[in-house]
């Protein structure tokens, strides 16, 4: 089974802090994704990466950056956390193209106070 592991399930951070959300997958998938989940809005794509050191902006990249130094690891960075970034963050990975299944981690609940 594919395993996507997010390092922290629950985080509380202060406004202005730099926040790192880490994600690791164990199936050698080329593609990795970060989504944000908010009630009524579904999942919105923040960034995705289709190879090591490659990244593309999703639909809501403002206020976020990403890092992919190794194939199995994809990090989401909030340079200066704000209260409107309080949300559930979901990491996912996929082997190959758009018809293949995306596998999700269990999510990281981030509260910015």
């Amino acid at each position, binding site marked *: 089974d594919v395993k996507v592991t997010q390092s922290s399930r629950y985080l509380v951070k202060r406004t202005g802090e730099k926040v790192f959300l880490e994600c690791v997958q164990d199936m050698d998938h080329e593609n990795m994704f970060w*989504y944000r989940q908010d009630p*009524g809005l*579904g*999942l919105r794509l923040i960034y995705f990466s289709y190879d090591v050191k490659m990244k593309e902006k999703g639909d809501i990249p403002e206020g976020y950056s990403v890092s992919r130094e190794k194939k199995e690891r994809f990090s989401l960075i909030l340079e200066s956390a704000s209260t409107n970034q309080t949300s559930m963050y979901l990491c996912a990975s996929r082997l190959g*193209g*758009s*018809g293949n*299944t995306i596998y*999700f981690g269990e*999510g990281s609940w981030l509260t910015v106070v």
Partner: protein
Amino acid sequence: AQSVTQLDSQVPVFEEAPVELRCNYSSSVSVYLFWYVQYPNQGLQLLLKYLSGSTLVESINGFEAEFNKSQTSFHLRKPSVHISDTAEYFCAVSSKAAGNKLTFGGGTRVLVKP
């Protein structure tokens, strides 16, 4: 740009009754369609998907969805729900033309009552 609309944000239903979750997508090109389910306090997992071929696709736990190209819809149905089907359901679309991105709808929360 591709987009997905789930017409119902919440659907209450009694156990053993049928349920239908509506999904419409917008895309000018050939698409792949997915339904994902999120049980309480868990991540999303694939329920079923349409890639090509038969327009009716089924899951192992009794759900089915039908791709209707003329109506740009991919509605999800189950003839008889169980308490364990209580979850949030997300419809999603992807295509090569959209850079292989997977775009989700807003989700439909299903609450199965005894």
